[in-house]
């Protein structure tokens, strides 16, 4: 099975064969890969070199936390790559984006109004949790379609705060 991986501007082709044999950009290697103690920690012995990472699958890709360094990896298999390459135009980001509370807390301040246009990185809401005030930023440009919380309101983790369109 062949996988195409992307990290920032770097690309690696990883082919997985049988019996711990893999090829990375056509270089054959032996990969002993195991999860440790039924947790999302993985130990990799790659041609004798020992690495360990926490690995999480998120909506946007695979996060690999390795020696204190977080790598966001996009992985596609051959079929997925073909599909993407055959679609004539680049995919247009569209639709509503739900901005959720990353942790339970209390809404201290709301910096935007419904209908307002925001830019990526703008502070939209201040959420207090663990005795700290935390800024929730807009993950992309957009218009505040609906605001779902009020200042002073307690929110649960992953509760929708506002909808960006």
């Amino acid at each position, binding site marked *: *099975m062949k*996988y195409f*991986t992307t*990290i*920032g501007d*770097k690309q*690696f082709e*990883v082919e*997985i064969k049988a019996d711990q044999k*893999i090829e*990375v950009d056509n270089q054959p*290697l032996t*990969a002993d*890969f195991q999860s440790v*103690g039924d*947790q*999302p*920690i*993985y130990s*990799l012995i*790659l041609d004798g070199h020992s*690495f360990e*990472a*926490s*690995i999480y*699958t998120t909506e946007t*890709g*695979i996060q*690999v*936390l*390795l*020696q*204190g*360094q*977080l*790598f966001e*990896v996009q*992985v596609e*298999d051959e079929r997925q790559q073909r599909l993407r390459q055959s679609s004539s135009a680049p995919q247009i980001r569209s639709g509503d984006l739900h901005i959720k509370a*990353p*942790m*339970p*807390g209390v809404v201290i301040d709301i910096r935007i109004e419904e209908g307002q246009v925001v830019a990526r990185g703008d502070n939209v809401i201040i959420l207090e*949790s*663990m*005795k*700290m*005030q*935390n*800024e929730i*930023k807009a993950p992309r440009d957009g218009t505040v379609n609906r605001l779902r919380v009020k200042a002073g309101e307690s929110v649960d*983790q992953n509760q929708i705060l506002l909808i960006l369109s």
Partner: protein
Amino acid sequence: MFEKVLIANRGEIAVRIIRACHELGLRTIAVYSEADRAALHVRQADEAYLLGPAAARESYLRGDKIIDIAKKSGAGAIHPGYGFLAERDDFAQAVLDAGLVFIGPRPSAIAAMGDKAVARSTVTAAGIQVVPGTEGEGNLSDDDLLAIAPKIGFPLLVKATAGGGGKGMREVKSAEEMPGLLEAARREAEASFGDGNVYLEKLILNARHIEFQILADNHGNVIHLGERECSLQRRHQKLLEESPSPFVNDELRTQMGEVACSAARAVDYLNAGTIEFLVDKDHKFFFLEMNTRLQVEHPITELVTGIDIVKEQLRIARDRKLRYAQEDIHFNGWALECRINAEDAYNNFLPSTGTLNSVIAPSGPGVRVDTGVYAGFEISPYYDALISKLICWGETRGEAILRMRRALEEYRILGVKTNIPFHQHIMDSHRFIAGSFDTRFVEERFSMDELEEEKEHLAKIAAVMAALVTHRESQSASQIVRRDKRDTSNWKWVGRWERMNR
């Protein structure tokens, strides 16, 4: 004298105090909120009593209930830890009024140092240089402050007189932005301390934050245990401390230590406390404030002096004379402390809550971990984000850094995101290794996105791992389907199989 101590706190510091008590043969009483029934301090104490709901104001801030429990359970003393009630002179007084020992300073000293404006005037009277600003006066109106500000000069800081921990603090770069920031600081101070008073302080550029640990007994003895370097901060929150400071030489240490002891004497101080200084690039130092309690970062001082500060607190509270004179205090080696917080270092340090699925703490020579959590415990949003303190000692600063590096790499915490990667980046930072940093370093000259050259090859490893995980997931997904089929009758299996292969 007391034989039973009530610990009016939670988390790692409650556990730390319980350990010290047990090692001195004292019995311990824990108090806890509904969110903390399974917390380590409840499990380890000899006795434990419920205070109330999770919110601090209904539990750990209920001084009345705590004193009531102490009296009913026969506690002879209360240790407040840090935070919560630790710097409330009214609580300390109420403890004394109930006939109990307060393991900390006298209420008068807490009050004198607790109001930052009063503290500044008190130590100024004792001949100690404070950071220039609005001297000695509290309760200044916005108009007063706006009038004084240009005389101090910009940039300056607005700080809460009842403050601490960076709350109610704002940096002001110009007169124009001052009214809005004043309002924000007052609002935050009011919310945090129930007191919206603020004062102004000159912002010293390229400053280091260096503090001195002092101990004072009830027999007139005051000594210091050297300094702690606390310049590595983010949003005025300390993240990493070391002792000694790479910036302080023996001469400066002696000078600053003497001033620290004078400041403590100026308020007739008792028990353990910390004098915070700002030190400018010319080694000129200014009194900033005094923390009239045990400090989070006390362990680094313990490791370089060999003195167990919490046990000394208990001895002092039992009216013992200090066992050490200043000349008995020697500094051996170097210690670092990383505060391990439930914060996502890769997502703007947002707090992270959840159940800890797995914890593998580092250990071995020269490593100490102070914590109040364990695998299976839930990190709740009600209290601060401190999971543990990782403390490493080395013969030299270099050895301590190398040890901290390997300890951070060993540390595994699953279930919440942590700031361990932040500390790993700091330990790799050439500026940190060279000791050339100030209080602005983290915010202005540090990025989590920078990748040290020697770590660039890791991208390939990450790619391999991501591919292997993806492969494994797709394999096991098909295996689950295959496992299912055994539980179903044959005709169902055929149907399913056909659908899948269509």
